[in-house]
């Protein structure tokens, strides 16, 4: 009972740090998944007088994933009532060519502007439709979403840090007492500090384990996946290997830094 109480304060602080970091990871992931989905749905339409040289254009604009020519048949079909086959063939030759351009990732507004400008610089490209109004709106929403999550997680981190610094004084006091007593019986500094490091690494491992349980539970909840499904993306909530490694490493680093702070603040009382 007693030993649990000793561990609790640092473990809680570490868990809330790990929680905010994992939330940041999840939001980072959902945004890139959402961007990918948007990139998939988004395309530009280019009108040209001549057949385009795909490889030239793609070399100049690395953002372009694919270029496909749109068939003019649909347009012609609407006009062709009462036209002879010969005229239709002629019309096909004189009609401008339409192309659909897909991008590798979802561009920012300025990337779209630059791409449009570069394409229009080609003498035979007469028009570029980039649907910039719709794009701007979704893009801004995306950025807003990202900002809100980041602010939320960062403020949670800051509050936790403040709490930790307040607790640090108490820990410092508590560990200082023990370190002092050990010193009075001749324990060298490394021996006095060793206990502290061992304790805080144990706490870091407990905190990682608690986070592991917490996020495994969250990840197994259908509700959260339904939310992501509803905007058409799938996001990994918690990877039991790589995420756990990140969180454990982070917890250990934080607790070692805290231990160092306590040891640096260690004073022998008279």
């Amino acid at each position, binding site marked *: 009972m007693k030993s649990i109480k000793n561990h609790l304060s640092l473990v809680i602080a570490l868990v809330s740090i790990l929680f905010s970091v994992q939330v940041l990871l999840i939001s980072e992931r959902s945004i890139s998944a959402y961007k990918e989905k948007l990139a998939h749905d988004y395309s530009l339409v280019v009108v040209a007088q001549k057949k385009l040289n795909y490889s030239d254009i793609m070399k100049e604009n690395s953002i372009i994933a694919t270029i496909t020519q749109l068939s003019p048949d649909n347009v012609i079909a609407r006009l062709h009532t009462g036209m002879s086959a010969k005229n239709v063939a002629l019309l096909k030759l004189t009609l401008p060519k339409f192309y659909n351009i897909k991008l590798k990732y979802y561009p920012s507004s300025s990337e779209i502007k630059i791409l449009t400008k570069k394409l229009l610089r080609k003498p035979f490209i007469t028009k570029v439709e980039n649907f910039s109004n719709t794009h701007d709106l979704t893009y801004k929403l995306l950025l807003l979403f990202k900002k809100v999550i980041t602010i939320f997680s960062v403020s949670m981190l800051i509050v936790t840090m403040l709490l930790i610094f307040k607790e640090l004084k108490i820990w410092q006091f508590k560990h200082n007492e023990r370190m002092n007593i*050990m010193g009075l019986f*001749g324990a*060298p500094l490394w021996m006095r500090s060793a206990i502290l490091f061992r304790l805080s690494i144990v706490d870091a491992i407990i905190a990682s384990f608690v986070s592991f349980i917490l996020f495994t539970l969250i990840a197994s909840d259908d509700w959260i996946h339904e939310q992501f499904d509803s905007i058409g993306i799938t996001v990994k909530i918690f990877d039991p290997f790589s995420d756990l490694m990140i969180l454990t490493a982070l917890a250990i680093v934080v607790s070692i830094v805290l231990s160092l702070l306590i040891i640096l603040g260690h004073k022998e009382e*008279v």
Partner: protein
Amino acid sequence: MDKVIIADNLSLAYSDDETIINKVKFSIDSGSFVFITGASGSGKSTLLKSLYGALNPQEGSLVVGGVELKGVSNAKLNFLRKHIGIVFQDYKLVKEWTIEKNIMLPLLINGYEKGVTQNQVDSLLKHVRLKHQAGKYPQELSGGEQQRVAMARALSHNPILILADEPTGNLDDYSAELIWNLLVGANEQLKTTVIVVTHHIPETIKVDYKHYHIEFGRINEVN
């Protein structure tokens, strides 16, 4: 005879404005049993602090176990402290450790083997009549019991010098007798030098002792 403590022109102070011990000269033979008395606030605990190096001499020289404590290095001080057993006036037990672990501390610091350590702790617990409390934490013990734990800890590593600050201050006559017997036993059997701060020298004590009295910053031998 070897001197375990040599003080020459020694002054002790916590700040420059107030000197607690003022230019005293004394020496203590190795293997002797010494009582220190004095009014409350006269500087008894302060003198002990200087002997285990927690308070640096303001002036003069103080040699304990062959180590000059004025401006002593950390390494030398740690070495010396490993061979001293201290009973603090406020016990200074580690709160988050069991009684057993507290008594073990000097043995762990001195790098004793686990088996030796456990035997030593068991026998000390028996001597201070706390065998049944071994797994408890200091706060779960009475003041007198904590004091006995502090005594057991001070004896655990068979130190060459024991410094005890009012080790029977909180004890009934029976428990006090127990403590005196332990200290006398260490002094007689292991030739441990024992320095005890106390308000009352027990009349029944069966040992040849020296008695110093602290008054007005001076240390005088009483006959």
